[in-house]
């Protein structure tokens, strides 16, 4: 299986970040994503970076693992950096290479924008790394609760989300299994011309779809057999509760935001 895919993968643990209420984590990350775009000088970037890195260290998720998980996006980060370096023509020339002049403005822009990317991806992957999919859907259901007033099917949406999240590992396993079975029958997924490789996907996709539909049907049947009716009057196994540590983290985040707005350039 693809080992560098960590988006959506949960690493069990018992750190402060793991134990935070999922609603706290979602709220903070939601605002963090906006706030990142307000940083525009060294100090404000430092504040955000410190915030993100310290949450990473507190979570005790192995750093090597996080970095490895970022491999698919490294390319994007580096590409953005190089693009800015070549295209932006502000500030003074600091390096002259025959056809290209590199400007300080471009360098700074490049670093700033790649930093933004890095922070965004780091924080969002922190959410999925330290929160089980069930906690996330519970939190989303809870946070969308007000929408029930306008007849929005909040519970059904949350259920759909948790079912799809639940079946990602199952489908990955299934994919792994079927691709091994077909590879044993001589399919080559890795080498050969693109056209051949595209054709090799058919023996993988057809059985995968067949089993996914079968699984969905069985699940629906099992739910109906047990009298599942939806959200009305249903109690929860895990009640979400805001604790002192959540308030503490909110306060810290508020401080970071305040610091950012005090130090950024206008």
């Amino acid at each position: 299986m693809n080992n560098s895919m960590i988006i959506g993968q949960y690493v069990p643990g018992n750190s402060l970040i793991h134990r935070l209420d999922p609603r706290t984590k979602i709220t903070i990350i939601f605002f963090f994503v906006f706030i990142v775009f307000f940083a525009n000088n060294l100090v404000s970037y430092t504040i955000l970076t410190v915030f993100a890195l310290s949450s990473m260290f507190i979570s005790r998720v192995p750093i090597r693992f996080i970095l490895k998980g970022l491999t698919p996006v490294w390319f994007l980060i580096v590409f953005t950096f190089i693009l800015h370096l070549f295209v932006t023509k502000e500030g003074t020339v600091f390096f002259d290479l025959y056809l290209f002049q590199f400007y300080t403005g471009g360098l700074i822009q490049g670093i700033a924008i790649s930093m933004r990317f890095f922070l965004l991806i780091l924080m969002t992957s922190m959410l999925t790394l330290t929160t089980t999919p069930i906690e996330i859907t519970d939190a989303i259901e809870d946070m969308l609760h007000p929408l029930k007033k306008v007849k929005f099917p909040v519970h059904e949406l949350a259920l759909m989300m948790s079912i799809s999240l639940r079946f990602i590992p199952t489908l990955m396993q299934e994919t792994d299994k079927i691709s091994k079975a077909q590879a044993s029958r001589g399919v080559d997924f890795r080498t050969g011309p693109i056209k051949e490789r595209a054709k090799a996907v058919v023996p993988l996709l057809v059985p995968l779809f067949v089993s996914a539909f079968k699984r969905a049907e069985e699940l629906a049947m099992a739910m109906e057999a047990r009298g599942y009716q939806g959200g009305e009057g249903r109690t929860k196994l895990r009640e979400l509760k805001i604790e002192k540590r959540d308030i503490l983290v909110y306060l810290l985040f508020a401080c970071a935001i305040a610091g950012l707005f005090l130090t950024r350039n206008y």
Partner: protein
Amino acid sequence: MDITFKNVTYIYQRNTPFAHKAIEDLSFHIPSGSFVAIIGHTGSGKSTLIQHLNGMVIPSEGEVTVGDFHLTQGKKPESMKELRSKVGVVFQYPEHQLFEETVGKDIAFGPENFGVPEDEIKRRIQEIIPAVGLPEELLERSPFDLSGGQMRRVAIAGVLAVKPDVLVLDEPTAGLDPRGQKDIMDMFYNLHKEQGLTTVLVTHSMEDAVKYADHVIIMNKGTKYMEGKPEEVFIQKDALNKVQLDVPEMVQFLNLFEAKFGKPIPFERQSIKEIAQSIQGIVKGAAPHE
């Protein structure tokens, strides 16, 4: 083809927090032409073990040798495809691998990939269809219209059509009705005998192991727990119970017989008929005046 495992260790998701040792320091040798049963409780590393046999996984440490192919970390054999054409694997629930429009096309898929000429494939299909117990008119039907048992047979036919030298079976009869189980196992056994295959059978069924295998490997928690001839391994009740396995019913019966009648009948993989004859001999001997 000879199969040799030398100090093989396999670790899933190495270098991540999810790293998990499925097999540890496993060594054994399977001579060409033998029928080996690999038995173990769920999670004992059986399925990982057999994935080494056709290079689906490469050992993290140690070396696997299948015929002339050597598999070690960082050094893949150049002709993986050739290895896979020589080692046929029937995975658990192989019917999940069916995808073609017709049964015939699906059976032909494997041999086509390995470059078998078309008329030869046709000839093989004609030969295999009756062997796996399928009616010929199914060839033009969609595999998804068939019953579970028929789908299983089609999938097995698809593996056999490649004509492998080594046949690896991962619980090939799981979920079939008793009659179907017996038919399919008998078919594998006949193929094994007729074509001189080397067969590796992963199973939970002690009865199948007794009936078909000439060598048994018991796995426990990723290591080899016991190994030997079935008649030697299967009488060690205490050792087997320790790893949540039971002796075959035949052995249980012989033990109980000895406890009740005080006459031991040694376990030599006899058939039911042979045991009945031994019992008859003992009973008659005990009551000569009857």
